[in-house]
């Protein structure tokens, strides 16, 4: 147990050498603690940065790209939108409620740090199998945490997705995306400037919660159970009421233009906020630990500097404005304390009393800019070729229960989404369960309705990425494009959350690199800039890595929002059409994974065709020529049409779907359209002009869900399965053990 201190903090011997080189001496314990959190994988992206550089980041509408607290894009009418996605995977496995709750709190702070009012949250979630009691415990806690924090803090949760799969049994994924809105001219950046300006700490007291959260927890995998339980004190505890007042207080300070720069305290706490603001502004800072309001007695300086206590912000204020800043804080019952001042040079000095002894001194920029950069070894899996040959289609003879297979794939997420306030602010035109979420776009200051809309989607597909991380990631981006087209939106920007296993494993690094290449390729083809992202590594448990799970969030703009988008509801008598290429293969499909066939090969995306499909779908939606629309993704045409029948309460008779491939293939660029007979000629003419493949597959009518030659089910039986699946599963109880 005589491990050197730097190793217990998660630093390697080489990293210690580098610190000694920077400082020209041995670091003391406080300095070492600060480097350990700032150089953690979570904060420094040391394993991924070398690859992330390949993503395209520039675009016509980009105001702020990656590297700031959030990406910001111009959406017209002098309005800007801030967008960010984050992960809170590790804390949520150890302590699901608080892990998920503080994930929501953290991302909201990232957004209002930019001067934006947070207006929407979306949660992509991944849990172990629903029939596993511990996975249900995690899922129930996570959903309650998101609900408890998000509803109270007052930011609507407008969508997201939830997947249950065995790959997440020891390592769930809890990602969260947040959107904020701001007048374009109020954009603020997290930087300090003006020597003599003051650093004011706003919000909660600083306690011992979350110390080493980014290094001990987020940058290591899970092992044996006792050790994992010991990590619980590294999880922070959230207070949504404090955060709500903090939002209002900070937005009022920004409105009154009383702060020079502002930075939230998230991972790595004060070490991160103080060094980042100073380093971005090219200045230094004297930081007085004794001025930090503490939650408990006897806290060590290193604890104060690395604590991840929630609901705190660091504002840089000119001395002239201090009085006004303190008055506004008081109105909102927000604690505020001067904890430091901006200095010349680039040194971050930690002091005990502003004129007291120096406890530590490091170049502010060295904490992030000099963080180590690793180009870790990569290698494709040894059995890559054999995996490609092992296609699910090989096993088709063993199974022909089409009805049973379909019913296994459909369930409503309402048990989850109805626990979230999805409607606050009166913007939500299409909420959870839609092709993409749609919000009215109102001016953030005047409240005036622009008559336009925002559309947002989150997508991720571990199954595709397990089969082929490069193509799978490209297809994920493609799915987002199509989701936005289904609500009539033009895409503007993408954010990503890259959830992968242990980067010290060459196969995982290969997956990450391949995924980034696939995503880069797709983003370039679609002219979609990446404005922000997050990388979550070490998603492993007992030595098993999760399937690669890149999640993307894409935001788009709807130019005329005068009616809700068509959605999934068709009407009696509608003609049903599928547009897009013939389906090919079942590899990576929900059907195949449900049967345990987790290998095979994905078809390469035909970008030109995909763009045409998106364009024509958008045109039909904008011209209001389709009653209903559903892109074909998880579960194939079978699940898409079943969901449409369930949504409308009207059955259908389908034909020309005669195999597993036709029913369950998830090959891309396909959309199901429901068209009123009066519009049929019109729609088909537009489809012909667009030169996209199309096939009439049937008719919406009656109370049965029938596919000629394959299955014939009462609509009611599908509806029952849809509605009851999650409630019944959760009635089975949960266990923490």
């Amino acid at each position: 147990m005589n491990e050197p201190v730097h190793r217990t903090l998660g630093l390697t011997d080489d990293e210690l050498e580098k610190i000694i080189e920077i400082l020209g001496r041995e670091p003391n314990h406080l300095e070492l603690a600060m480097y350990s959190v700032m150089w953690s994988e979570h904060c420094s992206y040391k394993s991924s940065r070398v690859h992330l550089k390949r993503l395209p980041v520039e675009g016509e509408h980009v105001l702020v790209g990656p590297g700031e607290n959030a990406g910001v894009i111009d959406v017209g009418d002098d309005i800007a939108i801030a967008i960010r996605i984050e992960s809170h995977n590790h804390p949520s496995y150890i302590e699901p409620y608080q892990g998920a709750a503080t994930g929501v709190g953290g991302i909201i702070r990232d957004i209002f740090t930019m001067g934006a009012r947070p207006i929407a949250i979306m949660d992509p979630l991944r849990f172990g199998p629903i029939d596993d009691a511990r996975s249900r415990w995690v899922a129930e806690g996570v959903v309650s945490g998101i609900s408890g924090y998000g509803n109270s803090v007052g930011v609507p949760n407008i969508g997201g997705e939830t997947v249950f799969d065995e790959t997440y049994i020891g390592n769930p994924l809890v990602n969260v995306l947040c959107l904020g809105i701001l007048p374009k001219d109020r954009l603020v950046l997290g930087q300090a400037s003006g020597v003599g300006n003051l650093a004011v700490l706003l919000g909660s007291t600083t306690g011992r919660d979350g110390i080493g959260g980014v290094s001990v927890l987020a940058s290591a995998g899970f092992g044996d159970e006792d050790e994992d339980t010991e990590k619980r004190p590294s999880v922070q505890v959230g207070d949504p009421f404090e955060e709500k007042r903090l939002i209002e207080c900070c937005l009022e300070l920004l409105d009154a233009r009383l702060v020079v720069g502002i930075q939230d305290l998230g991972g790595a706490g004060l070490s991160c906020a103080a060094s980042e603001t100073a380093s971005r502004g090219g200045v230094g800072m004297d930081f007085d630990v004794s001025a930090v309001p503490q939650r408990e007695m006897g806290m060590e300086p290193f604890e104060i500097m690395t604590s991840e206590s929630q609901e705190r912000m660091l504002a840089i204020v000119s001395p002239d404005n201090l009085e006004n800043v303190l008055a506004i804080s008081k109105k909102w019952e927000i604690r505020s304390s001067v904890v430091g001042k901006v200095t010349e040079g680039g040194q971050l000095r930690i002091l005990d009393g502003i004129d007291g002894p120096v406890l530590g001194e490091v170049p502010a920029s060295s904490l992030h800019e000099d963080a180590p950069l690793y180009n870790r070894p990569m290698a494709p899996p040894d059995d890559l070729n054999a995996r490609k040959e092992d296609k699910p289609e090989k096993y088709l003879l063993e199974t022909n229960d089409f009805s049973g297979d379909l019913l296994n794939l459909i369930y409503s997420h309402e048990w989850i989404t109805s626990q979230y306030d999805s409607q606050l602010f009166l913007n939500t035109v299409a909420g959870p369960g839609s092709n993409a979420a749609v919000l009215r776009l109102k001016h953030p200051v005047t409240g005036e309705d622009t008559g336009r809309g925002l559309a947002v989607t989150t997508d991720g597909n571990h199954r595709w990425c397990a089969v082929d991380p490069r193509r799978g990631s490209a297809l994920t981006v493609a799915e987002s494009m199509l989701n936005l087209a289904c609500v009539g939106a033009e895409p503007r920007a993408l954010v990503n959350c890259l959830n992968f296993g242990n980067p010290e494993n060459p196969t995982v690094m290969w997956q990450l690199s391949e995924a980034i290449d696939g995503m880069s390729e797709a983003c370039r083809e679609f002219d979609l800039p990446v404005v922000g992202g997050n990388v979550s590594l070490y998603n492993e448990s007992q030595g098993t890595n999760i399937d690669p799970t890149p999640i993307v969030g894409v935001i788009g703009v709807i130019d005329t929002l005068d009616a809700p988008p068509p959605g999934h509801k068709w009407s009696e008598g509608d003609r049903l059409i599928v547009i897009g290429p013939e389906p090919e293969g079942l590899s990576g499909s929900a059907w195949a994974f449900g049967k345990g066939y987790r290998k095979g090969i994905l078809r390469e995306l035909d970008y030109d065709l995909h763009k045409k499909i998106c364009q024509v779908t958008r045109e039909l939606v904008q011209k209001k020529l389709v009653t209903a629309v559903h892109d074909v993704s998880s579960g194939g045409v079978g699940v898409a049409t079943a969901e449409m029948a369930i949504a409308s309460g009207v059955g259908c008779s389908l034909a020309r779907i005669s195999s597993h491939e036709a029913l369950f293939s998830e090959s891309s660029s396909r959309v199901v359209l429901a068209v009123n007979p009066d519009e049929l000629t019109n729609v088909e003419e537009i489809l012909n002009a667009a030169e996209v493949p199309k096939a009439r597959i049937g008719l919406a009518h009656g109370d049965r869900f029938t596919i000629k030659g394959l299955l014939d089910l009462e609509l009611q039986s599908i509806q029952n399965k849809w509605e009851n699946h999650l409630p019944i599963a959760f009635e089975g109880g949960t266990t923490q053990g």
Partner: protein
Amino acid sequence: MSPTIGVIVFPGSNCEQDALEAVTSLGAKSKLIWHDSFDLGSADAVIIPGGFAHGDYLRPGAIARFSPAMESVFAFARSGRPVLGICNGFQVLTEAGLLPGALQKNSGLKFLCKPVNLTVRTTNSVLTSQTVKGDGLRIPVNHFEGNYTCTEETLEELQDEDRILLTYEDNPNGSMGDIAGICNAERNVVGLMPHPERACHPLLGSTDGQPLLKSFIESSEL
């Protein structure tokens, strides 16, 4: 002159802008009133909006009722002027004793956000005067503590005095008597768990909240 609707804001309220937007779209003037003010200004009627006043800590509405503004709302209500509590506002009004009963955790022990179908039980109140008895309204609920409860005597009184304004068609939260909204004996103080302000725009899926808020605005003109 269109009436002015004052919307009380506590730390932790979050539906105040929504209430403002909805009543303004129906032709009223509106203004926000910070909770620590005794002055309701020129308000002709008062809305206590939804949200989580004081974080709902201790109990929803339990701390908010002690705010200075609530003292003025109390006097305002006693003088016969219209007061409407929506969701958290309903909880505040029961805690303040302006409406009988209490709102406890939903029977499903989960937060619930979804549109529900309501039935108008009486048109004799500041909230329902422009509706039709027996009509159905589709309006969202959004709460964890919306399960209305009271003593048997109070329930009888509410029934006998025709003070149950709205009931749920398919009770989502276990409320006694399917109660979604009630009024006081003088019929000028009303509270309901569903959010009428969320059902006032065609893009939001329903405009059934309009007749309720129109009733309320009109009553403040009298």
